[in-house]
């Protein structure tokens, strides 16, 4: 056993190492979030937190549950594929105001066709050729778009816009 004499300093060092490692494990237990590593090298709960962020655009399906009359006008028209909030803006607050008891009332903002129509339909050679484009000043002579075109179904019908 002569090989193992004078081992005190080694054992002390080994003991310190074990203690330090134990402290590391304890600290790690408290510092690393519980869900870390649930799916991979990240905090699993982050996925749920990101999914819980508030929605601002309610989606056209929510609009159409109440505004079926407008959906019917849009049906078959040139603007069928243009979803409600593309022009009307984010209206989840409006949906909440109408469906949740005690929610703050919310009035959707008034829209300006002079801005909205031109955003898409202003003439530019950069746009796809088949897309309907007009030079707004020449086209209407200063008249508002909705004088002739009903925005929900913009093809001009006999008798003008309703």
């Amino acid at each position, binding site marked *: 056993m002569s090989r193992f004499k004078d081992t005190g300093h080694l054992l002390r060092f080994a003991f310190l190492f074990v203690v330090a490692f134990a402290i590391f494990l304890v600290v790690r237990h408290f510092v690393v979030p519980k869900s*870390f590593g*649930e*799916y*991979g*090298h*990240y*905090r*699993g*709960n*982050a*996925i*749920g*937190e*990101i*999914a*819980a*962020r*508030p*929605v*601002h*655009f309610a*989606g*056209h399906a929510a609009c159409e549950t109440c505004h079926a009359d407008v959906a019917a006008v849009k049906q078959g028209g040139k*603007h069928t*594929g*243009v*979803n409600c*909030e*593309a022009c009307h*803006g*984010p209206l989840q607050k409006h949906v909440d105001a109408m469906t949740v008891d005690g929610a703050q009332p919310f009035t959707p903002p008034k829209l300006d066709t002079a801005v909205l129509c031109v*955003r*898409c339909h*202003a*003439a*530019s*050679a*950069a*746009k*796809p050729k088949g*897309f309907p484009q007009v030079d707004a000043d020449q086209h209407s002579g200063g008249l508002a778009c909705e004088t002739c075109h009903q925005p929900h179904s913009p093809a001009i019908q006999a008798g003008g816009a309703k």
Partner: protein
Amino acid sequence: MKIDRRHFLIMLPAAAVAWKYVQAGTPEASPNYKMSDHWWSMLIDIPKCIGCGNCVRACAAENDVPEGHFRTWVERYHVTDYDMVNPLVISPDGGKEGFPSVPEDAGKYFFVPKMCNHCADSPCTQVCPVGATFIAPDGVVLVDQTYCLGCAYCVQACPYGCRYIHPEKKVADKCTLCYHRITKGLTTACAENCPTGARQLCDLKNPNDPIHAFLKTHHVQVLKPQMATGAKVFYNELDGSVR
């Protein structure tokens, strides 16, 4: 089926390899949404884009994107005659308020909406030193903003320039593919508000998604395929001059 000890031992390594995928598919964050049932992507139909900027405004409104930063933006390419290598690209305020009008017959023009490509082998998640950014089990690249240090390694790593440091939060921020919407059955804010249907959210794990037929019958590209990022934003009829 009868498994003897010999076969059991042969299958053991295969089971060990599969185990992490088995685990990845089990617990779910929200009650009616199963992450393992989805593999999200997006289709951008270049011939349909009119450069109205609706997607950029919608994204900013939905996600409180700070002024001057963009989770999605629109670029207008102008390929002057025969010069495919040096297209003239503009994106005034990310295309938020549309683009200046162009007179007739001035060369080839088209719009390219850009956003996070939600890469399957994303360079940005690989460089994060703290595990704050990751590919979720449904294929969406996300940032855990409570864990992010703001070191901006990921901002440098993204070959598409899709990340930025949030000026107030001082952490990395990027497109979440409207994760808070798609997990509730809604589409993304940009796709919801695109008036021409140039953007479509796609689920590659859904066999009934029209994306499968579309990818088989159209000329579809991803951006920078040479980077081997596994980009999942598919561009229909993308011009060769797009970088």
